[in-house]
């Protein structure tokens, strides 16, 4: 039975690794300028974790195979290297491995979070609320008007609570239900929650960030491939959470200009 267990462990370990090696289920192709760093970090971690996983399962299986069912008189053998060798291996091999991962991973994280957006980045505000995203472009004046929670009125399409009658900056703000951005242009995304915790997740963009009610956050990214991608909520926000999504359309600059013009006309 021990030998069967050893074989089973090895079969499970190899079978578990096959979909990884074959890339059966992988993240969609990256469309961001910062994404390659994240993907590279993912690959390196996969290699190190994969080797650790296979090695541990294999050695476990071999020892189970070899040292089970021995006779009562068999002599207990000493593990070569003893416990000190194993503890040192854990500290040196795993310690080095994880510190290296941590250090290199910091680079990818820093690229997203520790750099300021470029001065000419395009600001777009996204508001999350049960169970929809809305987007706001500042219009020709380049300024967002202030938000007034008490003026939110979804029935009259005032999703953000704008007061254009009294706030001049709000007059030319453009509010949309879909997000469009020009390709190869840095976007400065200003994140605001209307009600509860939500999240902004675009798999292809390698971006995921929670909305924090009461605390507006921002992040910046550049998309470098034209196409249409899903924006989904990943922070449980209620019964319609599974259906809370919008679309991100990455366009050429000229297409974007026309689109924005059209949206302005629709306000």
């Amino acid at each position, binding site marked *: 039975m021990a030998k069967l267990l050893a074989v089973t462990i090895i079969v499970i370990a190899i079978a578990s690794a096959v979909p990884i090696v074959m890339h059966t289920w992988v993240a969609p192709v990256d469309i961001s300028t910062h994404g390659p760093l994240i993907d590279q970090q993912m690959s390196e971690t996969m290699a190190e974790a994969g080797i650790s996983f296979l090695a541990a399962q294999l050695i476990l299986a071999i020892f189970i195979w070899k040292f089970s*069912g021995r006779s009562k008189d068999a002599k207990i053998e000493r593990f070569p290297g003893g416990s000190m060798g194993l503890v040192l291996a854990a500290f040196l091999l795993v310690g080095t491995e994880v510190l290296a991962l941590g250090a290199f991973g910091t680079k990818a994280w820093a690229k997203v*979070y520790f750099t300021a957006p470029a001065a000419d980045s395009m600001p777009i505000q996204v508001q999350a609320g049960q169970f929809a995203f809305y987007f706001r472009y500042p219009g020709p004046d380049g300024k967002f008007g202030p938000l007034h929670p008490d003026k939110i009125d979804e029935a009259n399409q005032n999703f953000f609570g704008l007061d254009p009658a009294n706030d001049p900056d709000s007059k030319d703000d453009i509010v949309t239900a879909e997000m469009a951005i020009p390709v190869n242009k840095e976007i400065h995304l200003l994140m605001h929650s209307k009600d509860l915790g939500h999240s902004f997740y675009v798999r292809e963009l390698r971006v995921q960030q929670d909305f924090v*009610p009461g605390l507006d956050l921002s992040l910046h990214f550049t998309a470098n491939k034209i196409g249409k991608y899903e924006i989904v909520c990943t922070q449980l926000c209620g019964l319609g959470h599974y259906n809370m999504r919008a679309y991100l359309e990455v366009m050429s600059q000229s297409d974007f200009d026309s689109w924005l013009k059209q949206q302005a006309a629709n306000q």
Partner: protein
Amino acid sequence: MHDMSAHAAPHHAPPEGFIKNHVFSLDHKVIGKQYYTLALVAVFIGMVLSWFMRIHLAWTNAAIPGLQLLSPAGAPNGLMTPEYYLELMTMHGTIMVFFVLTTAPFAGFGNYFLPIQVGAEDMPFPHFNMMSFWITLTAFCVLISAFFVGDGPPLAGWTAYAPLSAVGSIAGPGEGTGQVLWATAIGIFCIGQLLGSLNFISTVLDMRTKGMTLMRLPITAWAWFITSCIGLTAFAVLLPACILLILDHVAGTSFFIASGLVVNDKLLPHSGGSTLLWQHLFWFFGHPEVYIAIVPGMGIVTHVLITNMRRPMLSIKAILYSMWALAFLSYMVYGHHMFVSGMNPFSSLAFSFPTLLITIPSTVVVLIWIGSLYGSKLRINAASLFALGFISMFVSGGVSGFFLAQPSIDIMLHATYFVVGHFHMVMGVAALFGIFSGTYFWFPKMTGHMMNETWGKVHFWLTFIGTYAIFMPFHYLGMAGNVRRYSAFTDDYLVPLIPVHKFITIAALCTGAVQLIFIFNLIYSRFKGPKAPDNPWECTSLEWTMPSPPPWNNFGGKDPIVYHDAYQYGIEGSSGDYVMQDSHEQIQTVRDEK
């Protein structure tokens, strides 16, 4: 250190009558069995809830016959609504984490065996001990009552993130009364665990018998002691967090609710609260909770493996110090649950490095286990199979921690099924394997009957393969970007992944059904199993020196005297291949190999 020869007076008189013997018992052994039974009931409920969820995820438009009886509104004609899915999910997680993974390996086995393993007649505060169980049972009843009140249980998940969990029913079904009941139940649960932890800690520090120095304690006793120390701090933070959450509901406070929120077209009157505060308080408890669930399992696996390898661990000290390191580091890593929460991104790095470092003590434990198998005389039985399965599962679940410890990768994997696969394997299944291993190992002592080994092995094989079939694909789904906590997969991106979900659902239904073998074996053996000898596994610790089952006062009114370390196996020149801790035999003590 206290005078170990001067024990406290006997803790309670022999119990008389059914009520004092089996219901309001002061006997730690009865209380341990009560906790274990509660965990069995809870795990059955939690598993059935997961079946409903899995069926719904795989066949979203299929009616589940009979589900409408449980909730006519949540499942009209058996068809699950999105909100009912989330409610079942919340209850599944809460029941499993609190009333199974905390209750069975720690409170169940710990209550039964900790006093015996230290050589005591009982715990120092038997009334507190009894209270801790009844408080825990009350918490369970309060939680379950959420199914039957108002608009059902809460839907905010077992983590109950604010402000969804704090603003009341305006945010969704179950977020009013159901959520308050949830917070009340968890608060009550915390009180029970605090009482239990105090008892465990004082048992180890003050109740050890003569000769039982700290370093002679079996590793299980250490594991329960360390878990108690974690629990004392962790539950002490969750309790006030739950009280604050209840106050936000019933007293109009704004601890977790910020200003200017417009929920369901209504501007809330709250102001000044912090939504991230709940996450900090919850995860300050939540991550140590992982170790509350798994450290007792590590202890049980070590104890069972040593007995079945017929040799001591290469270094029991390395395992012990690693468990302490895990306990200590568990408080410094909790922020890895919050990398993309909006917490300061510099904090993410501060939490990332300890998270990566915590793999070192985990690796030490695994390597010592595997290295100790080398050159051993491994016996295969249901208990050792589950212990070996624990190692395999702990490794599989552990390596995915490499990914989630890194903020940059967490951008992709956070809130996906990768996380679900990770924690189910490393703290769910692995901990359950520890519980199974402990059950097959200690059942003879607890009941006086042997369990059926053949059925135990069948149970192991089907569970081992089944759990891998369920939880390994979760990782693949997560890598493909499958978001968790969705009640259905309707968008274009997720639809192609539904076949994987169907495979998982079938595996989950089969593996769940296999547990009936275990339940049958447990009940049948309790009444019809062959009579158990005092020490069927030839183990050295004190629980095996007494009759099976032990008398009410454990050692018959005498204090045992301990002469040896806990794991003296393979002793050259000794009459057998092991020496009991209370044996008078003179031996050369086997120490850790360098």
